[in-house]
């Protein structure tokens, strides 16, 4: 056994490729909350959480038994909560959206209850498009640094933005650049650096920072116009690491465990950027300034306010798009001659609306169950055939009732079924792997290089099940494919463009499969509707969903010290099925609020 390094790693225990017998992703887990974010207190342990003692995730335990199942997930041992090192201090480069929105706020001020957040009104070179995600989620902090090409981009943009800012300020009589008579350059720039700098750095500037950025302008004034000199100071703010990187350094006195708490401004920044892609709004800024982000309750209020309606929040939808990567359907080529009814982009748009619909109706109650079992989809005239619906649908997307024996929840969305298919045929292995990894949190190793014999060509009438038979008899295949194929074969009632079917190659479709490691509901199943119902009731699936939520909202893989956060979020979700409570639990946790007190 070895522990994968990096990212997702943190907590995945992977079997050796040869044996492929230990593909268990150890959970992080069940633990009693201990202390508060301000005083994490001494570590303590307990053996079971509230209620569902048989449904707990366990803390990752590299020495846990590795049988390819989830024995350690279902039967957690005593896990210390509050123990272990919290995450390191980190910086997290802005994303493209955060960068653009921050520039918009620079010109238009912080949004507030009375002033809606606005978009940037002039063109810039889009920076930070290139994300090589370490894990499935595009917002992992580790994925974001800054290379020489991006440096050129931010320098060019800084020039453009600073020039426009000076132009705007010159026409603003309330600004020292627009007033008559104009005060001395040093005084004027000093005021503006403090004011605009706070918008960009997402905190008040320290006096020495104000001095430094002001001095850049004053020094440059002998070689350029006053306006250009002022723009130089602004441009320096725009390329400063304090702007381009979110800071999670913490401050103040260390707690009894030696960790430090994020400052209120850092908390405000993290909440705002994570939940809205914008820097802090006026309410959050005022709360930080007043030291009002120190308690779980105050954070909970802000999270609820910032997220607003779950179905309307793009950052929430993004989680689902990346957790269940149905958007890949738009990138799978289908021959339009053979499949003229297929439109990958529209299917993705349908599923976006389906998810938003679920979030709106069930986001605060029974989310996971609705996501996996709802037979109310969204379709339109152009996509009706993909769902097996009559062609008389409206041109615009509308909620539709799908045949309940054929469609249940997101697993039967044509977009997802297409996303896990090839151009011409279904991809049983990928479909099964998705369920195994994303819903059951089993880690399936990558294929060993050069050791995989090709599947035999059985001719055009062979079914997917025929082609994969070798996986269940060839020992080298069985070791890993037993975690994928028994699940993926259950999807065979859907072709590679997501249509329901009863025959394949002239033979009746066999959509039977076997579910294992789900904690409950294990055993033979018949088709995805049956499977989805079992998954919706599975405590393992619920815990796995929480874990992916942690990764997305915290921007990193879970580690040994995150048991409390995961347990609290799991309990929040389990009690009511409330997604907002789950993500609030993350932001109230020690995992979010504290950092190791060392560089």
């Amino acid at each position, binding site marked *: 056994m070895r522990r994968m390094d*990096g*990212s*997702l790693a943190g907590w995945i225990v992977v079997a050796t490729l040869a044996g492929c017998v230990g593909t268990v992703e150890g959970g992080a887990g069940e633990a009693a909350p201990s202390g508060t974010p301000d005083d994490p207190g001494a570590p303590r342990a307990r053996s079971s959480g509230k209620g569902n003692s048989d449904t707990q995730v366990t803390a990752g335990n590299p020495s846990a038994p590795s049988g390819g199942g989830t024995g350690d997930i279902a039967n957690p041992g005593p896990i210390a909560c509050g123990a272990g090192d919290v995450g*390191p*201090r*980190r*910086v997290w480069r802005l994303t493209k959206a955060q960068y653009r929105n921050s520039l918009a706020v620079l010109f238009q001020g912080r949004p507030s209850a009375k002033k809606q957040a606005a978009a940037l009104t002039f*063109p810039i*070179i*889009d*920076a930070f*498009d*290139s994300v*090589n*995600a*370490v*894990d*499935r989620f595009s917002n992992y902090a580790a994925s974001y*640094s800054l*290379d*020489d*090409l*991006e*440096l050129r*981009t931010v*320098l*060019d*943009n*800084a*020039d453009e933005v600073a*020039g426009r800012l000076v132009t705007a300020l010159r026409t603003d009589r309330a600004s020292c650049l627009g007033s008559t008579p104009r005060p001395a350059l040093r005084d004027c720039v000093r005021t503006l650096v403090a004011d605009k700098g706070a918008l960009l750095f997402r905190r008040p500037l320290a006096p020495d920072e104000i001095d*430094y950025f002001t001095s*850049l302008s004053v020094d*440059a004034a002998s*070689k*350029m*116009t*006053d306006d*250009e000199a002022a*723009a*130089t100071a602004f*441009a*320096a703010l725009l*390329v400063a*690491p*304090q702007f381009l*990187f979110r800071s999670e*350094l913490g401050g103040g006195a260390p707690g009894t465990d030696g960790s430090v708490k994020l400052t209120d401004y850092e908390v405000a920044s993290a909440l705002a950027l994570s939940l809205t892609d914008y820097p802090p709004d006026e309410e959050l800024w005022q709360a930080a300034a007043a030291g009002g982000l120190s308690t779980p309750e105050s954070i909970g209020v802000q999270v609820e306010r910032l997220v607003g309606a779950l179905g309307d929040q793009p950052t929430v939808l993004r989680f689902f798009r990346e957790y269940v990567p149905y958007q*890949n359907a738009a990138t*799978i*080529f289908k*021959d*339009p001659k053979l499949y003229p009814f297929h439109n990958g982009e529209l299917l993705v748009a349908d599923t976006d609306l389906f998810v938003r619909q679920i979030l709106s109706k069930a986001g605060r109650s029974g989310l996971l169950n609705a996501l996996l079992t709802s037979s109310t989809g969204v379709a339109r005239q152009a996509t009706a055939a993909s769902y097996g619906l009559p062609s008389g649908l409206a041109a615009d997307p509308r909620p539709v009732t799908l045949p309940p024996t054929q469609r249940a929840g997101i697993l039967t969305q044509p977009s997802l079924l297409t996303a896990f298919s090839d151009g011409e045929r279904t991809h049983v292995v990928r479909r099964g792997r998705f369920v195994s990894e994303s819903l059951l949190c089993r880690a399936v190793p*990558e*294929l060993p*290089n*050069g050791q995989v014999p*090709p599947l035999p060509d059985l001719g055009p009438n062979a079914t997917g099940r025929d082609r994969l038979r070798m996986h269940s008899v060839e020992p080298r295949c069985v070791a890993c494919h037993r975690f994928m194929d028994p699940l993926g074969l259950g999807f065979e009632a859907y072709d590679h463009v997501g249509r329901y079917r009863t025959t394949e190659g002239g033979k009746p479709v066999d959509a039977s499969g076997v579910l294992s490691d789900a904690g409950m509901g294990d055993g033979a199943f018949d088709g995805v509707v049956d499977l989805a119902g079992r998954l919706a009731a599975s405590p393992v699936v619920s815990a796995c969903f929480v874990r992916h939520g942690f990764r997305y909202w915290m921007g990193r893989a879970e580690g040994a010290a995150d048991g409390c956060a995961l347990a609290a979020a799991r309990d929040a979700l389990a009690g009511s099925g409330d997604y907002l409570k789950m993500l609030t639990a993350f932001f109230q946790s020690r995992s979010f609020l504290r950092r190791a007190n*060392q*560089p």
Partner: protein
Amino acid sequence: MKSPMQPSAASRSRRRFLSRLGLGAGAGLLGPIVEGLVSEAQGQTSKRKRVVFFITGNGIKNENFLPTEVRSNSADTLLPGRTDYTWPTMFKALEPYRSRMLLVDGLANQCGSPYGHTGGFGALSNVEPQGGAEKGGPPGAQTIDQFLAGKLGGDTRLKSVLYGITQTPKGPTMSSVFGAGSGKPQSHILSPKLLYSTIFDGLGSTAAADPKTLRKAILLDSIRHEVKRVQGNLAGEERRKLDDYLAAIDDMEKRQTAQGASLASCQAAKAPAVAGDDWNYGADRPAEALLESMTEMAAVALACGITNVAGVSFGTGHSHYFFPRFYRLAQLVPTSDWDGKPNYIDGALHNEPSQTVQMNVIHNFNAGLIARMIAVLSKIKEGNGTAWDNTVFVYFSENGDAHHAERRHWPVAIIGSGGGGFKADGSFLRYPRKPAKGYRSMGDLFCTLATGLGFPTDSFGKGGVEPVVGPLTELLA
């Protein structure tokens, strides 16, 4: 001394340049620069070795690459170089240079998932990307283009010029195949405007004369100052992020005053950065035209000494389907009748044997771009010959031999002698295909490239996916 900010002559020049882009007419864009260079460079005695990596996605199939004369030969034994073969249609545009090319098959690099869609960053490194190629994880190691950029680009304004096209660009840059080091992807440019400003902005200006250049110097200093302020609180990977930022600044400063690009003609195209979304393609702005424009810029950058290393990403990426629609090339393919809908030959993406014609058109378009670069470099006198004599182009797919590739044998074309380092005699040769005894790897090819360009090594890519023995002597002069 003090003048209000207003559009400069350079920005007007930029606008004229951009207006031409809309017409999709890259050809001749920088012709006057080239003509100027031809006269200025007469008598230039110094030689500079250059290398261009042209990397296509989607694999290069046997049906396109293998000469018919060798298809019946065993793939398990070394097929020594031979020159008596039918020239592959996919390289028709390069046929005039046939005697200075090598076609090589059989080299292995089984990075990425078997039957997967991409070798990703492993294609040019022989090292598996972090998290697997298919997931688009960061590089597992530095790629050969950046290794050579470090060697050949010490005194140039740009260490390398990397650009390309992709299916659905989300911005002016992306990264998918080039890597600065482990965990450090190297972006390439999708926007002609951005490439233009990257290559030409600030050429010939000095801090004393140009407020923009002066400001840039101030900004770079300020970044360094502020990074140090923040960095003290960080360690490990977090500290590395800011180290990367500092390294980018150091590199930019060093290159600001770099030699090369001193010829007046190279400065004729300077212009400030302008925002925009010219990386988006469409029927009125075909991807082909954008790539042509960028290729001309890269050719001039190579000719001017602005860089010695270029990399082209032609639809490479960590997804399934990275070829854009080819609005112009589609007109050359006699299969535009798919239910009355236009066929942009992106349908060739699966690269089936039946799609050989489409893929030949696509590869030959790329061959034509290389031929254009050769034409520019051939005009530049250098030593007793031309810049082309000191250049080598390397063409292969980041996915080896197929759309769904095992990557046991990578078709590779080496074009040019790179200053005499490579054999370049028109041969086709094939190494035993993995797992046959004596098979060789792409890692060996990378060692060969480094060695042929004057930086001998037998270890590039060692410890990666395939065993690395050392340079392929059959390819060296």
